[in-house]
């Protein structure tokens, strides 16, 4: 940084450490940390606790790096939407170049150190996740197709698979199904939100299913993905990470979730507006519990297994 920047940056806009940290999307990172931790702990091969901690940290840093690259590329559309206008780049706190440099550096750092700490399959999966989120989703398909939520959800679904690979060095049915759990959960979760929150994606020319195909089609999509999700979520219960606790949680929550999706599908806009989108809001709240409880149940099963309760 040159001396000139001392003078040109206004004092009030001097970027603080928190502004750089915000580039890593800390809220998204919590989901990454939690699901990667579950994937790592559910794996049948125990990892040294410190190596496990480092693995989750590097996966989180990789996720954060892709968030920074996403903010660098999407700065133009972030500035046009209320939800994202206060992000560090559109708010003028951090420059796009800084975000790009941080994103690229942390991407390389996280992949290399995950490989050195655990194995190169886990590192390759992390590298692919960053590539998928930044190139395939952010740069290519986000502004092109209303299925962008589905594609973005795939990137967010990799962490438990990476955690599993870090411990075992391989990919299994269980880890693929854990991927499917988050992948298939994202669209109904987000589209339910899109039904009751008026989003300004139009201003940013990002195609949203509610706008491009209408709200009736969005309701059909929510039901289709929810039914598919229920099948995969229950299927996961019959793999090595499942068990009676997971199956009970999955059965109860999937019955409730499918019922919620059917309720949304049966309603039209007039009925939804009449009760201020009650069913849609209820479904969205349930979706938050749904994902947390499924991965939480896997964690409990893994913990009990380690303690030899099921032996």
């Amino acid at each position, binding site marked *: 940084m040159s001396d000139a920047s001392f003078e040109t940056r206004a004092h009030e806009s001097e970027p*603080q*450490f*928190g502004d750089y*940290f915000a580039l890593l999307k800390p809220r998204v990172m919590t989901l990454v940390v939690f699901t990667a931790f579950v994937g790592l702990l559910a794996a049948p091969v125990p990892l*040294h606790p*410190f190596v496990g901690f*480092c693995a989750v940290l590097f996966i989180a840093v990789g996720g954060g790096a892709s968030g920074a690259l996403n903010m660098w590329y999407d700065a133009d559309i972030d500035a046009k939407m209320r939800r994202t206008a206060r992000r560090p780049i559109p708010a003028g706190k951090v420059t796009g170049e800084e975000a790009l440099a941080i994103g690229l550096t942390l991407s390389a750092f996280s992949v290399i150190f995950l490989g050195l700490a655990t194995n190169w399959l886990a590192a390759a999966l992390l590298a692919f996740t960053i590539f998928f989120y930044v190139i395939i989703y952010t740069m290519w398909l986000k502004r092109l197709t209303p299925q962008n939520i589905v594609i973005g959800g795939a990137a967010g679904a990799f962490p438990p698979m990476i955690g599993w690979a870090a411990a075992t060095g391989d990919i299994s049915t269980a880890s693929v199904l854990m991927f499917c759990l988050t992948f298939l959960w994202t669209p109904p979760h987000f589209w339910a939100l899109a039904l009751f929150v008026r989003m300004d994606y139009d201003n940013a020319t990002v195609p949203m299913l509610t706008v491009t195909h209408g709200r009736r089609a969005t309701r059909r999509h929510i039901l289709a993905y929810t039914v598919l999700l229920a099948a995969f979520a229950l299927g996961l219960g019959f793999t090595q990470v499942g068990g009676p606790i997971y199956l009970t949680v999955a059965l109860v929550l999937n019955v409730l979730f499918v019922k919620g999706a059917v309720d949304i599908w049966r309603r039209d806009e007039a009925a939804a507006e009449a009760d201020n989108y009650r069913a849609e809001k209820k479904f969205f709240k349930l979706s938050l519990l749904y994902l947390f409880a499924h991965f939480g149940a896997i964690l409990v099963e893994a913990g009990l297994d380690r303690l030899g309760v099921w032996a």
Partner: protein
Amino acid sequence: MSLSKQHEIHQRRRGRNIGLGLVLVAFIAIIFGLTVVKVSRGDFQMQPQGVSDGN
């Protein structure tokens, strides 16, 4: 432009510099910890030649 110890730039960037310092300290601690774990588990031990290929 002189940069004395009391220059206001230090005050302005204090939080950022402390944050970066803590990140660097954490990075050193992680590398040190990983090295200790890997060495104590024997991850870096060389395979004796001629044992694995059956010669």
